[in-house]
């Protein structure tokens, strides 16, 4: 058996028609092959008829290649880019609610500062921290906050963009 950990993560951005049912078509191609989507982010682009999806997925390379070809074939898919071999940026945003009494706040603030995160809500016994970054940074912050006690967390999923002249547009 191949070690699952050796399957590289693919970040795929897809420009799609902004229509009902598109998400189901796309996720269906993954689920039909038993692939779990690690992260999925969808939003309108500057053209409101076009949405951009960013999907992070790991899996057998050959099967993924086939999935990408099948994605490209979907009538509602306008364009697709896989960033695996392309210099690009990835960003994820997380809201993390952490247990915090008065006594904890200064230590928390230090950590938040180091990660260039923000405290966006303060209550008697908790704070909400907002952080943006790539996956590693967010994971690292989550680890650091673990000792305070994470009450709740919500992440947007990764969005990506290639650096420089390489643009995914219609």
């Amino acid at each position, binding site marked *: 058996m191949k070690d699952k950990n050796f399957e590289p993560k693919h970040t795929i951005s897809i420009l799609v028609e902004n229509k009902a049912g598109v998400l189901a078509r796309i996720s*269906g191609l993954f689920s*039909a092959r038993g692939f779990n989507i690690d992260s999925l982010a969808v939003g309108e682009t500057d053209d409101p008829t076009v949405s951009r999806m960013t999907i992070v997925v790991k899996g057998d390379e050959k099967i993924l*290649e086939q999935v990408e070809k099948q994605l490209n074939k979907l009538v509602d898919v306008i364009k697709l880019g896989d960033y695996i071999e392309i210099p690009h940026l990835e960003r994820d945003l997380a809201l993390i609610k952490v247990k915090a009494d008065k006594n904890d706040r200064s230590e928390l603030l230090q950590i938040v500062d180091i990660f260039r995160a923000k405290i966006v809500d303060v209550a008697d016994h908790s704070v909400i921290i907002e952080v943006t970054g790539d996956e590693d940074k967010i994971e690292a912050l989550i680890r650091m906050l673990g000792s305070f006690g994470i009450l709740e967390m919500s992440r947007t999923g990764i969005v990506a963009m290639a650096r420089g002249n390489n643009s995914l547009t219609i």
Partner: protein
Amino acid sequence: MEKTGAEIIVECLEREGVEFIFGIPGGCNLPFFDKLYDSKIRLILTRHEQGASHMADGYARSTGKVGVCTATSGPGATNLVTGLATAHMDSIPLVAITGQVRTDVIGSDAFQEADAIGCTRPVTKHNYLVKDVKDLAHVIREAFYIASTGRPGPVHIDVPVDIQRAKIEFSYPEKISIRSYSPTIKGHPLQIKKALELIKAAERPLLYVGGGTILSGATKELRTLAEKANIPVATTLMANGAMPFDHPLYLGPLGMHGKYSTNTAMQKCDLMISCGARFDDRVTGKLSSFSPHSKKIHFDIDPANIGKSVAVDVPVVGDLKTVLKELNDQMPEKNHKPWIEQIKEWDKKHPFSYKEDQGKDPFIKPQYVIQELHRLTKGEAIITTGVGQHQMWAMQWYPCKYPRHFLTSGGLGTMGYGFPSSIGAKLAFPEKPVICIDGDGSFQMTMSEMATAIHENVKVIVIILNNYYLGMVRQWQELFYKERFSASCLTAQGGRRTKENEPDPRSLKYIPDFVKFAEAYGALGLRLTHKEEVEGALKQALDSKVPVILDVIIHPEEKVFPMVPAGAGLDDIIVDMA
């Protein structure tokens, strides 16, 4: 002019040139059927929606046009799914229109509600739920365009009943364009050049021809290429008829139950030229030992097929007819006589063959029946099949003269496809003999369509090669499951038999009695148990003024050979058991 949704659907279908609609009305498509009442489109009322989808498919495969079927919401729509999946796997252009519950109750578990587009999404090329009557005409135009262009396929349109009733100022969308859909038609010139160089250099080239050749209408161009470059042609199940069976360069079928010679040629060739074929596992056998010495050229309209299971040297994406024309223009004359002679030697060594039954009361051989049919119809009839042994015998013994004359569910392997698809084809070609070569298992899956055949006066012939078994299942159980016939016997309680307790099937009562079944519907039913009866019965069937069932009793132990066992390489072909 103001029109209702139902009127718009009918007008759009008429403008697309639709001749037939196959289907069944129900609560949620009544407005549509009410308008069809006045339409010039011929409405074929089927007895099951699966029948409707296969009839539309048979019509589409035999004509090359888009087949249209329709059903109501819920169970009507779910009954279409098998037919859509069948068409999807074999790239057949269909448009299926279903009724849906009112838009304001969608998602409320309304009566006869199912998430129809959810059901058909993975088995169609595209689908639509129309929630605004102003989108309807456009959607129908798009559906026909998508179904019939690029790699063809089925498209499903789900129309809620209130949208069928809603009124709108109507104007027909003459032109459509879909920014995210533009199939590649012309092959890349550089790739064509590379293909040309490989063909020029080859000593043992082989054309591996699939159903895409027929879908693209490229059979003339294929023939030109084969003749110009002197390349022998082997076909997949889906490509029976892509090359006339009597052409000197035609070798025969490939794959699991293909010829020894074609499979050997596949293994020994130094250049394989794949035309509209997709390296299906039933053709390649074990991939690691598939055609090990060849360079490979792959012509396909679908880029997703390139390199899917077999790595190729020169892929060319484009419409085969267009690509082959380009290629043929630059192709020099070549000669591969020694190679072709060699393949003919292999064929002489192990041709398709069968032995006469040596028993005291010999059974009819299924191969003989098909051979006789081929002789009497000169290989020019339209043949449809179910799925199983009879399908493979039909492929082996009814090599076709023309394309679009062999209609079979190759990809999905849908039992029950044969009979309804023969009705669709016969409606399109009333003057041609249309014969469904079927099994007793397959036929029973859709035989309720006999009523449709009778009412619509569709004179199809069904030849049931009746071995009292799900024959292909039995064959696998005999070869690979220690002769334990679990649930494959159609005349035993629980379907269980072993070889020891196998009675002569002729001493058993088969349910149903297919002759009485035919008579109950007003068709002609004949039971054949001896070889001498075959020719006369076939002639009688071909002259019949009503649909015919020939119930041909064959031996349960009859097997399909040659056979490449599942998972084995083509070199491991079993020529026969003896």
